[in-house]
């Protein structure tokens, strides 16, 4: 479904993606993990066409994403930071995106699911961080697309909303969708993800199922398995932990 071939991207002298190749065909949740600055968001933004790679190709359902923007019709994206126009009401924002996409949307179901009803008439800049994230989630899940990309979906959510989010992700999974998630919260990843792609310095170091990762590293939980992967590669991100 998503096929990434030899992707290179540098910002100035900083090589963020280094000849990265990755294929995601498995239905369900694939978590893209890696330390800060490993290139996760750049990878996601490349898939979305927001970052233009220096070299390499990305195809979705066999179609090169450079050639046509219409692949984004079948793709939902949750940005890492819920940054939306400040002067719009939540209601207006949702209406605007619906109008731009021109597709049937399940916004009402989602508003009820995440309990956003009381906030619909508020302006976006008056909302708390968690509520903003819920608006972000409604906008991302609204269109029932077969491919969903979530960048740090759990950030700022209270425990109840977090449970809701996991519940919703499980519903989406049951429909056979492909979901890409980045997160730094390993317990969250462990609960929802079947597959792990581990990214380090712009390269994929591991791509396989969660159980394969545990077997490979000989660790019981994901947090230690990831740490083991980092240690194995002698990564500077661990220097502080060791000393």
């Amino acid at each position, binding site marked *: 479904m998503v096929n990434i071939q030899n992707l290179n991207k540098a910002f100035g002298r900083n090589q963020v993606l280094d000849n990265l190749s990755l294929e995601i065909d498995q239905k369900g949740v694939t978590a893209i993990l890696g330390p800060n600055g490993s290139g996760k968001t750049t990878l996601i933004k490349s898939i979305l066409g927001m970052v233009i790679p220096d070299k390499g190709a990305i195809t979705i359902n066999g179609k090169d994403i450079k050639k046509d923007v219409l692949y984004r019709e079948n793709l939902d994206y949750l940005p890492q930071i819920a940054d939306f*126009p400040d002067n719009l009401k939540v209601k207006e924002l949702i209406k605007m995106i619906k109008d731009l996409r021109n597709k049937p949307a399940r916004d009402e179901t989602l508003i009820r699911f995440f309990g956003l009803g009381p906030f619909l008439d508020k302006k976006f800049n008056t909302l708390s961080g968690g509520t903003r994230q819920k608006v972000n989630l409604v906008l991302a899940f609204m269109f029932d697309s077969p491919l969903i990309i979530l960048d740090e979906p759990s950030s700022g959510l209270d425990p109840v909303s977090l449970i809701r989010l996991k519940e919703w992700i499980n519903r989406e999974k049951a429909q056979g969708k492909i979901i890409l998630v980045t997160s730094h919260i390993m317990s969250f990843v462990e609960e929802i993800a079947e597959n792990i792609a581990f990214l380090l310095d712009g390269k994929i170091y591991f791509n396989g199922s969660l159980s394969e990762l545990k077997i490979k590293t000989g660790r019981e939980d994901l947090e230690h398995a990831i740490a083991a992967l980092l240690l194995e590669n002698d990564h500077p991100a661990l220097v502080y932990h060791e000393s």
Partner: protein
Amino acid sequence: MLKIIRYSFFDLARSRWSYAYFLFYLLLGTVLLFLNNNLSGAIITLMNVNIILVPLIATVFGVMYHYNSREFTNLLLAQPLKRSAIFTGQYFGIAGSLSLSLVLGLGIPFAAYGLFRSAMIWNFAVLLITGVALTFIFTSLAFNIALSNENRIKGFGYAILLWLLLAVVYDGIFLLLLAGFQEYPLEKFSLVATVFNPVDLSRILILLKLDISALMGYTGAVFKQFFGTSAGGIFSSLMLSLWILLPLWRMRRIAKKKDF
């Protein structure tokens, strides 16, 4: 793209600044008509205000809008929309909204004064057309600057610098050169130099139409001599359209390659 034009247009039309801009022109038009008590005098004064002020407002608004609507832009970029459609749409939205403030702000007092019953109507139309053209030109230049500079302070700096250069400094240097080399034939040089500055082009376009040789200045006279009134008008309008199209084309090219 139409939807984006609509959103950008109303986004700006709702803001306080575009009302202030509209009211400013309303006031200026009314006051000038009362002071001059004739249409042609008011048009000449307005021309002088327009060719300085319109570029400034369009440049500042263009840059400001781009930086302030980053979130909106990022939201749009994740939708199935072409980049060129997003930025061209935003461009037409903001330039259209500014032009509307200008046209209504000046049009209302002039219409009330009895413009439609006078022979001045075409001269006034040329004033508005150059005002709108300058709005579109400087908005697209502003978008170019803002898209090429991530840093807002830098972007604003370059934009103001560009305005200063084209609206103020250019004429000064031009005059200095004309004075310094007055023994030489400078017709061709001054023609070319005028074409490279949209502010000068608009001035000449209005002056040719008003046919006031006293205010024409050196370039105006050369222009008239070289092209005659009507060919000069067509040529300068053509050049003004190029001044809109070329930056717009470059803007779309930058937008295609940019990372967000």
